[in-house]
């Protein structure tokens, strides 16, 4: 850890952490401790209140709504207990949505990591036009999801689109594949687009982290005869690991909740082949106005994300990334 942290700490005399705690605790008068604690609560209060009002309250209401049969045209809902949840687990569509969501989020996040790290390593080298390349690579990420969706919808068109024309360039007879219009290729196509769209974010994060990797340790590794792979695996990766973990957490949550792209590209179709939680919830809530059923799906997807997030935050704590 950088020395500046100790400076913030102020009155530490020694670097050895274990000495500090008992000494500090003993020195602090009880009243001051209380006052400082209040100050702490006071300082985080705005955040807590905002989270309470904007997230917790609506969440509680949504969970309540998921136990009702509320429709837009049936404004006084009846309590139906777990019926919405039972309906969900008995429907094929629901399981398809769960599977699609996990595939979608899983594959997209893994490839965003690999591509992000790979391009960050490349762009971290010195070459002419480095700044321009960095700016260009980030373009997909700054493109609005809807615009990207429309662009790719055209690219995927079997006859006038660029994807099949590109395949054709390699001497393969034009395949006329309707990438988005075929249930077996649609999910792959939207996943590919999401990887294209999201990788630059990972790249920027990793690039920033790479700038902070100490040249000394890399040189030391060089002197010790480490080859490129060893330097990456034993020196660079451990140093940027905190960034990697945070980035993977963020991209997972974002991808799981990503709506625009699929909505524009396929509307969840063909059939249910690209339906994921956000698009399915939208369909139930805004298109069919089955508010009870829609919030049920919302709660389920929230639980999946929370399980992931809690597990992940525990891992982060264990690895002390958050320190």
């Amino acid at each position: 850890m950088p020395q500046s942290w100790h400076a913030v700490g102020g009155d530490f005399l020694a670097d050895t952490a274990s000495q500090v705690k008992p000494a500090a605790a003993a020195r602090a008068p009880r009243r001051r401790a209380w006052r400082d604690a209040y100050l702490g609560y006071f300082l985080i209060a705005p955040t807590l209140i905002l989270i309470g009002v904007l997230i917790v309250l609506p969440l509680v209401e949504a969970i309540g709504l998921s136990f009702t049969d509320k429709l837009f045209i049936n404004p006084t809902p009846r309590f139906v207990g777990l019926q919405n949840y039972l309906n969900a687990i008995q429907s094929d569509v629901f399981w398809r949505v769960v599977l699609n969501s996990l595939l979608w989020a899983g594959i997209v996040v893994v490839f965003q990591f690999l591509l992000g790290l790979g391009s960050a390593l490349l762009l971290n080298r010195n070459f002419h036009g480095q700044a321009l390349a960095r700016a260009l690579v980030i373009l997909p990420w700054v493109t609005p999801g809807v615009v990207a969706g429309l662009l790719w919808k055209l690219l995927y068109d079997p006859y006038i689109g660029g994807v099949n024309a590109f395949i054709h360039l390699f001497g393969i007879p034009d395949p006329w594949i309707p990438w988005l219009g075929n249930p077996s290729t649609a999910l792959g196509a939207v996943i590919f687009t999401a990887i294209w769209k999201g990788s630059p974010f990972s790249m920027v994060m990793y690039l920033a982290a790479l700038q902070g990797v100490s040249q000394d340790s890399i040189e030391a590794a060089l002197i010790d005869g480490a080859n490129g792979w060893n330097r990456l695996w034993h020196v660079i990766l451990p140093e940027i690991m905190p960034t990697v973990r945070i980035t993977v957490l963020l991209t997972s949550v974002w991808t799981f909740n990503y709506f625009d792209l699929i909505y524009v590209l396929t509307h969840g179709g063909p059939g249910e082949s690209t339906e994921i939680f956000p698009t399915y919830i939208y369909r139930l809530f805004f298109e069919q106005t089955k508010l009870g059923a829609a919030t049920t799906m919302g709660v389920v997807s929230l639980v999946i994300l929370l399980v992931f997030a809690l597990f992940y935050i525990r891992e982060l704590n264990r690895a002390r990334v958050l320190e």
Partner: protein
Amino acid sequence: MRDDQVSLLGRRLTRRDMLRLLGLGTAALGLAACSQAPATPAAAPTSGGAAAAPTQPPAAAAPTTVAPTRAAAPTTAAAAPTAAATTAPAAAATRPVAQATPAVSGGGPKITLNYWDFQQSDKSILDAFEKARQDFQKANPNIEVKVTVTPYPQYRDALLKAAQGGNAPDVATVDQGGWTTEFAASGTILPLDDLVGKSSVIKKDVYFPGAWDSNFYQGKMWGVPMNNDVWEENYYNADLLNSAGVKPPTTWDELTDALKKLNKPPDQFGVGLLGHKGEDTIVTILSFIMSNGGAVLSDDGKTVMINQPPAVEALDFYQSLAQYAPEGTLNRAEPDAANLFTAGKIAMTWDGSWQQDTYNNRAPNMKWDLAMMPAPKGKSFVGCLGGWNLVIFKQSKNQDAAFKWIEFLSDKQVQQDVNSLIPARSDAGEAFVRAKRKQPDVILKTVQTGKAPRSNSPVWPQISDALQTMMQDLLSGTKAKDAADKAASAIDKIVKSV
């Protein structure tokens, strides 16, 4: 390292705690951001029905998210041509068009009237609307009309939230594709029978019959038609038809013959058949079903008829046309078909009259024309109507002023000036079509004979969803009867649940 402390906040809060909190906060915000702001759908679960409106003005959810897609624009017959498509991405979600406050010259307390509409992009229409608004305010100095427009894809979301959340506008346009009935059933809009009964402007016989009828539910009138158009006309590429020696078909048999001759894959295809999961696919198949004497629901909305012979025959016929369409019918929406048409890839495409400007703009050199859609032998084509009705929300405190505004918008000249779709008044509609559209007689005839089958049921959006699944099954190769049976049992459940 683990026991280092930040003494700033006293000894209790270690750096680890601090960062953990920060991290949690960030994660929570991340979750929140993802589930609330950027994605409307995910906002649904966390903010739920009524709570949605107060905490989240429609604007918050809009631009980044559901955004204006070409795919969404066609969702109803009524969506303005390419309006939503091309301009909406850039446009903010819900923005007041004008807020100018004219000087009030006394006379009663000042009333502010909120009017919502979906966003039109045509500059001349916007200017005309602003002028109309000023005229109305000059004539009614104590009323100020505040206009809020929303891109089509978010418009329904915004109205649903507002209607449930308590900040509904006084007057709004709602889609004839089932929204009017749905809002009526939800108890959020007013029946207008008394007001219309007393009106000297709004009379049944000055309107196109289909548009007028789309406002009735359970014996009451819930809206006043503003504009309407019909799914669909048969647009064809005249050069391609000529070189194949084909005349525009008038019957289904002739259509099959023509498509056989016009289909020369992979360079040229017969028709840009719609098939994606969306309302544009549904209104198209509805026109085929109705032209064959079939229906999805009986007129009273109680009996499911989608698996009866006339409807099944139409489905079967539609399925047989897929072989003359390019690959990818399962995901083809209205704008995709328009792209193929203007690219010269397809000989025919079936779309509404609002699409004419798009064809002219995108393919100024292409010789296109349109004809009446073919119908089964001995029958005539029945199109599926769509358009917008003006409704008054129950929450409105100024219902009389609201109706005054509706009456003003129902004036012949105003209708002619401010609409980008065919005005619902037949006199204004005729003038509009003759001035702005190719083949006005064909268009007027389809509008006059069209039906609005989607206003039969307050749960149309759910029925439409079942029909979309049916179409996906059908175009994936399921037998028409099997797909229709499956849809019928789903729709029966939906209808009985009301």
